[in-house]
């Protein structure tokens, strides 16, 4: 089971995770990662732009890679695009597996690749206006682990 979506407006991570889990009664463990817009630090809004012809197909291909690499019962990859406010969810990844090591590794791998290889461009709005976020060296290091 693979559920990969780009989401144009808000979503409810608790509800999404509950639905995902409900469909997987034979999975022993479910690992999830929720990324949200941090409150504080002067960020008033965050915008994620994407390129339609590449972004969702890229996420679907990532899902296929993950399914091929770990024995999973289910994989959920949800990513917001558009303008978000502090506390809004940005990304929800969940991996369900019989064995918890597989679920941890799959979710961790998914996040490293969503951060560094998916077609998203991020900008933040502060009192000084909008500013594009540059790629972080840490993201490249994370990717090199796999």
């Amino acid at each position, binding site marked *: 089971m693979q559920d990969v979506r780009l989401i144009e407006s808000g979503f409810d991570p608790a509800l999404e995770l509950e639905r995902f889990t409900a469909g997987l009664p034979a999975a022993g463990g479910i690992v999830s990662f929720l990324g949200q817009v941090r409150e504080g630090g002067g960020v008033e809004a965050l915008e994620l*732009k994407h*390129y339609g012809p590449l972004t969702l197909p890229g996420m679907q291909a990532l899902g296929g890679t993950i399914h091929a690499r770990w024995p999973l019962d289910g994989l959920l990859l949800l990513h917001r695009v558009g303008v978000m406010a502090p506390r809004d969810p940005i990304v929800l990844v969940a991996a369900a597996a019989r064995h918890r090591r597989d679920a941890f590794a799959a979710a961790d791998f998914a996040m490293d690749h969503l951060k560094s*290889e*998916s077609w*998203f*461009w*991020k900008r933040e709005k502060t009192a000084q206006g909008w500013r*594009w*976020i540059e*790629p972080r060296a840490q993201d490249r290091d994370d990717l090199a682990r796999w």
Partner: protein
Amino acid sequence: MGARLVFLGRLEDVAGADARDVAPGPLADVLARLEPTLAVELLGERVRMALNGRLIAETGGVVLGDGDELAFLPPVSGG
């Protein structure tokens, strides 16, 4: 109808819009008709290109025809 250039991330700011319609022709000619500051940014070594939704490795022989879309993709910063 012409061809269309699409600018992602900070390239949108350099171009002043997220896309621009241009006259068809060889890519070198299309770029030569842009503002030089924009053309330099678009040819940056970390900027990748996608022609009609597919990444292209070599831009040497690209000729934009009517209805073609060429996207300029700077390094991502997503997730």
